């Protein structure tokens, strides 16, 4: 009885971990993250796999070379593909356009800077722009810097961002803004 309860808990924990990690994980990694033995992880995996067979579950457990990942059931793939495509095709919202223009003119720019200038959190919009291939990001130090994608610039008929209209004027605004902000206080403006 006690053991059964513990198993249930492991299955639930496993679901939470795999749901969030979203990348293939092997037994070793799973057991390390969940702080259980590989044997227990294996039992939990089998049980989860079994549970997912139920008709009211929309996910499957995919195994590839000893690693496991959660994915949507293939029977839903046609309508999910449509869903993804529709989403990517949607017109840009004013907020997305604003963020995109900020990245185009002020790149490379960090998320904290984008958030600070816009005055709201931009993580959802940035993710949207990323998967639509309109912006790229690269790691610098411990943060991502965003810039317009090569494809997007090409789409606009530009070779580089300095060909954007009034590029120099906006650059000056950027420089003024950030230098004024940082001279005003010791505290990083983006993290007040």
């Amino acid at each position, binding site marked *: 009885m006690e053991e059964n309860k513990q198993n249930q808990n492991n299955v639930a924990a496993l679901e939470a971990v795999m749901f969030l990690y*979203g990348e293939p994980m092997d037994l070793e990694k799973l057991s390390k993250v969940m702080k259980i033995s590989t044997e227990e992880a294996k039992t939990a995996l089998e049980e989860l796999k079994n549970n997912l067979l139920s008709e009211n579950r929309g996910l499957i457990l995919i195994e590839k070379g000893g690693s496991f990942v959660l994915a949507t059931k293939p029977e839903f793939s046609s309508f999910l593909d449509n869903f993804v495509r529709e989403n990517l095709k949607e017109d*840009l919202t004013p907020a997305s*356009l604003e963020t995109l223009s900020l990245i185009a003119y002020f790149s490379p720019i960090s998320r904290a800077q984008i958030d600070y200038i816009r*005055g709201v959190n931009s993580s959802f919009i940035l993710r949207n722009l*990323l998967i639509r291939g*309109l912006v790229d990001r690269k790691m610098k130090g411990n943060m991502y810097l965003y810039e317009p994608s090569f494809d997007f610039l090409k789409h606009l008929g530009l070779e580089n961002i300095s060909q954007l209209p009034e590029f120099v004027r906006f650059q000056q605004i950027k420089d003024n803004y950030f230098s004024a902000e940082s001279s005003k206080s010791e505290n990083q403006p983006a993290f007040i």
Partner: protein
Amino acid sequence: MFEMKSVEFSGPLDKLLELIEGKKMDITRISLAEVTADFLTYLKDLTQANQENKNDSLSRIIADFLVVASQLILIKSKAILPEIELSEEEEESIQDLEKRLELYNQIKPMLAVLKKSWKENSPSFSREMFSSIQPVFYPPLKISINDLKLSLQSLVDSLGSFILETEKIERQIFTLEEKVAELSQRITDGISKFSQVISKKSRQEAIVMFLALLHLLRDQVLRVKQSEIFKEIELERV
């Protein structure tokens, strides 16, 4: 003494309640008049701390304190000089302060509850949008270089108004210390009327100047004379 970290500073209502509770009094006009001096002392310490260590958030807290300080001074003046007639606006503003304090008193436990939840939280996590999808280049159908420029321009425009707002608040902050020094200097220079001291000054600055006056009075640096309410306040160095 003073913790420099601004996180340690509570807001003006919180401080006011603390002072009233410290005297084991209820929220009444009498108790407000009673704690005015302590409140002003705290404000003075704040401004001093701010001078020693310029800090944006502290300046903002001081601006908040000044608003409440001006209401307290009004209450205190009325308590000292009962014959003062308060205008309708002033009366409303005092009633407002009392009402706010009552409400703040009621919601204080709420802050404590949230603070505890925030500290002892067990978070949930959701997935990133389309986290399993690789980026695909999907340009929006209608987008031009000009759209980008216009969008950025309107963002920059709104930024301007925010910067102005920041400066406005900063302009309002005249540190008490500065004003005490200024007032002291001007009396030494031979100025003997308070109206001369505050001529051409904003309402906000005049209030701080009056605070400075009270401080010099308390420290027995100067003597004042006022023949009648709303008449000239005569200043004289001790």
